[in-house]
């Protein structure tokens, strides 16, 4: 709760600072707010994590995931000094919107009532619709914003309809009450099951799982780089964590029913996304499909609900995934500055001109592909081992998909290290980017050395 208040206040502060001429103050304010909020997820002197009018509860799950999301946002804001440098009059709005969106994510980690989940999703999404179109004279950006808005609104509608049906069947929006109603077999089963299916569909839109993923590649490609990064990390984390929280706290008694559609969606998501990613030639589109495929792996955690360690596995996975994605996008921004089209050829010969960026990007790719000993491997390992007992064949499929994913992640490494052609890179590495990628690498290294520290957090 403290974290939400801090973030909200900071967001207001950035909005008003944006009205004045002190543009240089904006990034420090936003960073300070995020760091304070990050501290508040660890240290909570006023006991404000209690349940709050039956809407929130900042339990360990919520605090841990809030930590991941705020950390990701902090790093993204660290990149923003350079990433947003061309924005003039709208800079304050951009920071404000990012922070508001982050507040929404925190609601999605801590809700104990479906109404709060819905509000959280809206608080998260609406600023993002604006952010996606923040380059107002850019056609692709406008297309992305419109697509994202239409798809998002549609998904929220379906989700809301599902919640209504669940309410009809169980008589409450409160997760604990819903859980008890399902466990005791009260209410109409048909209505409940339809409701659950619609909620699965709605949330699958949000985490861009197949077959509800069509918006993702265009939106990722068209949005400004930092907004894409935010979508791929914070939004993805919020979506899957909310999914997990809702299904473990409310719908666990009906697991036999919903585990079938979730299994199908997970299998489709990882396979289709990986197969499509192979054929991409643009970095951002490739990362979009990569993020879809990670949604498939993350769904394994939903199937592992009830297995000890599944929360820790999800937490670890989202953290390593977010770190690697942010580092990759940080490097990409510098590369795209010079060779703007974002094709793989833009990375040719990067290892000679910027060994640091090349090494960071290579480690990020290895981590996303889940290759030992990078932290991404432990993420996959924890997730797979948690879900193994429930769905062994799905794990085999996931393993095959991990092998396929090497092919496209390695295209970047091949371009950077093995290509005999070389691009011109005149831009140096901006200070903000350097610090953020180094911090990201340090955290990935720490997670490799001490995976247990995060895994056992919840």
């Amino acid at each position: 709760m403290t974290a939400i208040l801090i973030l909200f206040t900071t967001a207001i502060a950035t909005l008003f600072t944006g009205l004045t001429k002190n543009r240089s103050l904006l990034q420090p304010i936003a960073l300070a707010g995020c760091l304070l909020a990050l501290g508040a997820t660890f240290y909570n002197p006023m006991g404000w994590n209690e349940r709050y009018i039956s809407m929130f509860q900042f339990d360990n799950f919520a605090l841990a995931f809030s930590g991941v999301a705020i950390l990701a946002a902090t790093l993204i804001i660290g990149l923003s000094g350079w990433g947003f440098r061309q924005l003039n009059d709208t800079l304050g709005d951009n920071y404000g919107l990012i922070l508001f969106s982050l507040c929404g994510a925190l609601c999605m980690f801590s809700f104990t009532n479906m109404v709060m989940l819905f509000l959280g999703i809206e608080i998260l999404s609406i600023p993002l619709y604006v952010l996606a179109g923040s380059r107002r004279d850019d056609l692709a950006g406008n297309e992305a914003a419109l697509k994202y808005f239409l798809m998002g609104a549609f998904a929220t509608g379906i989700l809301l309809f599902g919640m209504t049906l669940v309410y009809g069947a169980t008589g409450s929006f409160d997760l604990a009450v819903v859980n008890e109603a399902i466990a005791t077999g009260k209410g109409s089963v048909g209505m409940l099951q339809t409701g659950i299916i619609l909620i699965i569909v709605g949330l699958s839109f949000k985490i861009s799982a197949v077959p509800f993923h069509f918006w993702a590649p265009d939106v990722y490609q068209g949005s400004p780089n930092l907004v894409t990064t935010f979508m791929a990390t914070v939004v993805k984390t919020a979506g899957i964590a909310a999914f997990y929280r809702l299904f473990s706290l409310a719908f666990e008694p009906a697991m036999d029913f919903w585990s079938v559609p979730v299994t199908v969606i997970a299998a489709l998501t990882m396979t289709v996304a990986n197969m499509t990613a192979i054929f991409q030639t643009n970095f951002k589109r490739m990362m979009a499909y990569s993020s879809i495929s990670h949604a498939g792996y993350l769904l394994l955690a939903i199937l592992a609900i009830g297995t000890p360690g599944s929360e820790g596995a999800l937490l670890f996975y989202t953290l390593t995934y977010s770190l690697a994605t942010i580092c990759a996008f940080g490097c990409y921004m510098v590369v795209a500055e010079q060779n703007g089209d974002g094709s793989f050829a833009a990375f040719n010969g990067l290892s000679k001109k910027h060994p640091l960026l090349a090494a960071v990007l290579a480690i990020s790719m290895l981590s996303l592909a889940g290759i030992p000993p990078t932290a991404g491997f432990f993420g996959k390992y924890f997730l797979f081992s948690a879900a193994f007992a429930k769905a062994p064949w799905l794990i085999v499929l996931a393993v095959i998909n991990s092998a396929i994913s090497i092919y496209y992640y390695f295209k970047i490494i091949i371009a950077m290290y093995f290509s005999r052609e070389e691009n011109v890179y005149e831009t140096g590495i901006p200070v903000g980017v350097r610090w953020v990628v180094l911090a990201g690498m340090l955290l990935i290294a720490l997670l490799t050395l001490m995976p247990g520290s995060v895994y056992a957090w919840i």
Partner: protein
Amino acid sequence: MSLLLVLIPLITAIFLLIARPSGARTIALVATLANLAVSGFACMGFVGDGSFNHEFSVPWVAEAGITFRLGMDGISLLMVILTNLLAPLIVLSSFGKQMEPEGRFYGLVMLMLAALNGVFMALDGLVFYVFYELALIPIYFICAIWGGQDRIRTTLKFFIYTFTGSLFMLVALLYVYLQTPGTHSFAWEELVRVQLDPTAAWWVLLGFFLAFAVKMPVFPFHTWQPDTYTTAPTGGTMLLSGIMLKMGVYGVIRWMVPLAPEAMHDLAPVFIILAVIGIVYASIIAVKQTDLKRLIAYSSIAHVGLIAAGVMVWNKAGLQGGLIQMLNHGINVVGLFFVVDMIERRLGTRSLYDMGGIAKSAPKFAALFMIVMLGSVAVPLTNGFPGEFLLLNGVWNYNFWLGAVAGLTIIFGAVYMLRAYGLVVFGESNAETAKFEDVQTNEWIVLGVIATLVVVLGFFPGLVLHLTDGSVNRILGTVQF
């Protein structure tokens, strides 16, 4: 002590990769020699009763039963000796070439050594897996950066092939791990103790087999190997053939058979027959090769096929033969690839038909090449002989016909190696080979050490057999099928 063997190369690697100092080759050489010294010390206080010496253990993910645990019994110690004995030779053999940027090349080699030492000493399933995969990344970069023609496609094929194989091993490991009692543990002893039901054991065994069969490689999983060996730079080829493929054989002995012996009774014949097919198949192809490097690549498949067959019959002769032959094959194959590299650097070709008459212009080279070649053919009193003899004895005891077919390896080996040697060294010299320069200092050291080892280990195979005896007895006693 065991931690030191991983840490020395690891720290050197990080230093070389990040600081990119000048004189990287010297630093790398010193580090490999230090590692060799440490493994020498490890031998001194060694207790050869099959227990684990020099154990090092810290919890890694305590909640999930993962412990960073290293230790050595005789089998591990032999592999560690192999790795650290060949490492300085491999580093030294790259001195003749400009590997730019140097810090990156030697850094990757050192990273590779850290991983290899880790693989051979890991006593925790997940630690083993992590090191096993870690070894893949540096060798991928080495082959793809400094390789020859078509390197990018070939190495990516190699990477995906081996990585896929080992992912199935991960699934198998995971399955066995989830059968351990309580909060689960990856400790070797715990995993061995698990009793699998027959169907599960089949799948587990197949998962492991896929990983190790690709790595060795065993027919029909060998298709990546000749291309990769041929395109890789010589240092990379030496690492791959001398040490890395032993990870597969070692994995069979330490992990595959002990973890799923329940299914070995049914599946071992299939594996052994595949290995024997590979011996004959690769030997026949080797006879037809005109590219010297490719020829040795195929001969390596044949030799490893015999090692695999011998190990999987799981009797004393087979295991002891497999172990001693792993060491000797490593020595010989590194020597042979070094010879190829010397020829290629001087003549600019690897085609057997562009050579000939080198004996006249470079007699010392011809003599050293002869010793290494004889070791590879397994002539008695060279190092190749005791291993192949024991292996064939092992396979023979298992099944007469299989032993007879596997025995063809010696005949074929003599055919293709003598043919290659004849075409390279004897006959008419041409304009290029007439001015073939004889061995230089660093080449003298590498080939001299290898030739000495070929002879010494040929005369005194007992040195090695003694080392592994206790461990082989113990593992045969505890794991039966």
